[in-house]
């Protein structure tokens, strides 16, 4: 699989910095944003192959960020991170615009596999 660039969006700075470092050891170029506005700004300034987005964010919540991403980058795959089993309110449905979701705590190998699948799917 070709190298890719990911934007991780989560307000837990120590979580995303650890993930950025671990993904870096695996040859994946990762950046992070701590809220939705910062994420949209970073996406305006740089190109990413995928976004990994926590649903619980301060200010603009994850669903609103997802809608904004999809307005400007309809083809960009987005993986959601959820605090618990499902994307929200007990529903197991993947929200429109998202490729898939991952519950926390995140298994890094599962994350990489899902990112690869999402990128491959978006390019097919």
């Amino acid at each position, binding site marked *: 699989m070709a190298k890719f660039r990911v934007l991780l969006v989560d307000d837990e700075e*120590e979580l995303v910095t*650890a993930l950025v470092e671990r993904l870096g050891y695996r040859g994946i170029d990762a950046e992070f944003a701590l809220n939705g506005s910062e994420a949209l700004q970073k996406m305006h300034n740089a190109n990413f192959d995928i976004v990994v987005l926590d649903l619980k964010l301060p200010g603009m919540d994850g669903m609103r960020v997802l809608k904004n991403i999809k307005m400007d980058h309809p083809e960009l795959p987005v993986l959601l991170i959820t605090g618990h089993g499902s994307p929200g309110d007990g529903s197991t449905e993947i929200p429109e615009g998202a490729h898939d979701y991952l519950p926390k705590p995140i298994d890094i190998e599962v994350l990489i596999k899902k990112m690869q699948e999402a990128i491959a799917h978006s390019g097919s």
Partner: protein
Amino acid sequence: MHIVAPEDKSEQEKLLREKGLSFFGAIAASVSHELNNVNSIIEQTAGLLGDLLAGAELGRPIKEEQLQRVRDRIEKQTHRGTRIIKRMNTFAHSVDYPIAEIEMNALIENIISLCKRLANLKKVELEAEMQSDPLSINSSPFLIQQALFLVMRNYFISDLAGETISVVLEPDKEGIVIIIETAAAEEVEIEDLDYIKLVLNQIQGNISNQSNSEKTRIMLKFPDLSH
């Protein structure tokens, strides 16, 4: 959602039980999310340590500062987790006695700490201004916390991003008052006012809205029920 408090006593008790459980659930859900975040950070940090060790086996030496950073991060998160668990335990025990002697500084500081994550999700800062001396009254710790939470929740959902909500505890000749205030002039509509009054009625408390064009200010009064 606006709830009209029923006039029938048994219906009131049923509503109090249901809404009390709902309040307890809201706090427990928020705490479980926060603990999950703590756990996630520790797990990724342990994973990072594993990556460093794997790198060392391949001849990439581990620097002392890398190990120090991992150690500091784990220590910080375990302390954070311990604080959250302690607060939740204190909150959970607040239902033990319907009426008890309560040290109000500790009670209010605890519920404010538990609500900070909910406030931060709305980009609102929550700060507590307590008394330097102990301030005790006899009342229901659970109902006081529920009334305060219900009022604060209205501030959280009122588009006050960037604002600070101050929760001030003061002595009063009959007991204590809690003032929930923000410098934002935006009108904070108190949903469930009927229900909040029902909660307050159980412990002879009352609510007054002292907002004006410059600030939003809601006052809750709780008498000492031992008088």
